[in-house]
């Protein structure tokens, strides 16, 4: 075969090959030769599989990445992230972008691309509208890595939204081009939120879901669930937040997940007081849109990534991610309940298998080999389907 014939494969066909490569394989393949590099600029890898980002203990300017689909348990190291990174906490991710908050000066927030190191500063919290004056620096708080904050980022247009809930009264947000944070008044505690397709899904304490449309200048509510809760329902369906009786299931967290299809799920994690048993319950809206019904299985081709509020569809070829499972980490402790805090911390990554109803720790050898301050799932190159 004449040498380098493959480098002369027409560019549009080469793109078809590149689109079938995983994220890391794509980066390596594009550097094979100039024609391939050219083709890679017009395509992007196929990646809907979450990776793990492992953040070492404080003060380090590197982090580690893990691709669950690679055959060996290889950790990629990203170095030279800078002094800023070493002194910041990661609050949320979207695609390859991390939302970071300075460890000491809490009003300093920025967005960082973990691969290109591109940094976008967000307006200072101190520039917040009139609230700051009256509420005594209430906003200069360290965010607790929980679901009160999220980021959405469009890789192509570099459009972004950062949303932050200041319970229970306000939601503040900042979009690309904003010089300060804008606010919306809320009227309820919110347990969780998810952003998808320019819609913000808010899950309130009263188990209602509101949807706000963020595609226009001013966000506006476009939907709200109208579920009538029957508080006289049978005891096994009712969970007590703070029951004195330790034999009862207590709720640890309530999360919202928006499926690939756009369907909204509520995911409740529950623990049996005074024991090590914990489990998850999933609910989806029934067809009449007025009732939550229990969902017992996701099917073998779908998995929930709780931190990201999404589900992923597993292709036939993907190894490394289990279907019918919930992937979660300790990054969403909504309840500062010391009694329940023993179950997991920010460094823990766990999988709940809906079929067997058991919790597993994936890749234990990785976690034991490094000292971490935080571990999160993120999806490099994430493009919403």
């Amino acid at each position, binding site marked *: 075969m004449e040498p380098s014939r493959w*480098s002369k494969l027409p560019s549009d066909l080469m793109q078809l*090959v590149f689109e079938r490569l995983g994220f890391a*394989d794509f*980066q390596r393949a594009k*550097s*094979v*030769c100039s024609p391939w590099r050219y083709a890679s600029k017009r395509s992007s890898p196929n990646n809907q599989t979450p990776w793990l980002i492992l953040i070492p203990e404080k003060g380090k300017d590197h982090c580690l990445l893990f691709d669950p689909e690679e055959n060996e348990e*290889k950790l990629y190291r990203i*170095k030279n992230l800078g002094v800023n990174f070493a002194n910041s906490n990661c609050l949320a991710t979207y695609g390859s972008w991390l939302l970071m908050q300075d460890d000491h000066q809490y009003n300093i927030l920025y967005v960082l691309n973990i691969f290109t190191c591109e940094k976008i500063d967000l307006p200072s919290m101190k520039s917040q509208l009139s609230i700051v004056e009256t509420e005594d620096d209430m906003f200069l708080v360290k965010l607790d890595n929980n679901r009160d904050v999220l980021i959405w980022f469009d890789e192509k247009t570099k459009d972004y939204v950062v949303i932050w809930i200041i319970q229970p009264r306000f939601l503040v947000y900042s979009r690309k081009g904003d010089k300060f944070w804008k606010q919306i008044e809320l009227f309820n505690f919110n347990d969780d939120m998810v952003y998808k397709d320019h819609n913000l899904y808010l899950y309130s304490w009263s188990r209602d879901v509101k949807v706000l449309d963020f595609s226009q200048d001013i966000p506006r509510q476009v939907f709200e669930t109208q579920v009538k809760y029957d508080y006289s329902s049978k005891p096994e369906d009712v969970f007590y937040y703070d029951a004195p009786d330790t034999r009862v299931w207590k709720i640890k967290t309530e999360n919202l997940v928006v499926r690939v299809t756009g369907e909204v799920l509520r995911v409740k994690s529950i623990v049996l007081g005074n024991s090590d048993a914990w489990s998850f319950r999933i609910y989806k809206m029934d067809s009449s849109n007025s009732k939550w019904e229990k969902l017992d299985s996701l099917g073998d081709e779908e998995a929930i990534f709780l931190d990201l509020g999404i589900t992923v569809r597993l292709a036939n070829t993907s190894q490394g991610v289990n279907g019918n499972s919930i992937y979660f980490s300790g990054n969403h402790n909504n309840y500062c309940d010391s009694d329940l805090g023993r179950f997991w911390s920010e460094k823990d990554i766990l999988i709940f298998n809906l079929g067997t109803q058991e919790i597993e720790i994936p890749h234990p050898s990785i976690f034991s080999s490094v000292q971490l301050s935080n571990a999160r799932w993120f999806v490099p190159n994430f493009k919403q389907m």
Partner: protein
Amino acid sequence: MSKKIILISSDGQSFEVDEAVARECGTIKNAIEDKCTDNGIPLANVTSATLAKVIEYCKKHVEAAAKASAGDKDIYGSNEDIELKTWDDDFVKVDQPLLFDIILAANYLDVPGLLDLTCQTVADMMRGKTPDEIRTIFHIKKDYTPEEEAAVREENAWAFM
């Protein structure tokens, strides 16, 4: 009896195939519909070895589709899918020059399933390999200057560990 279509490879060999098989190729389907098939269809860009493989693929997939719609899909369905996938996996175990030619032919003749299968095969060959390993597998010469190469590695240094 189903109509036969004659396909003529670039090196002059004629292949007689059922119309249903020929229609798996988008470009040939168009030629059939435009009624220009009387003296056979010359395919200037496809050699006989490659054309034989493309026809083999189309034949198998037409047969599989017929079985699926005729038979009881509930009982046989998933076994047939697995059997077809296994057949596909064996089908692409060819030497590289032929694989290369099949990709070009699948594109030229517009056979989406075959194009998908072959591109996926190439992607699978690159999985987990370093750039040097990929160059070895595909007999590609490195055409970067040392400066260019350094720049490329710099861009994504983390992936090259």
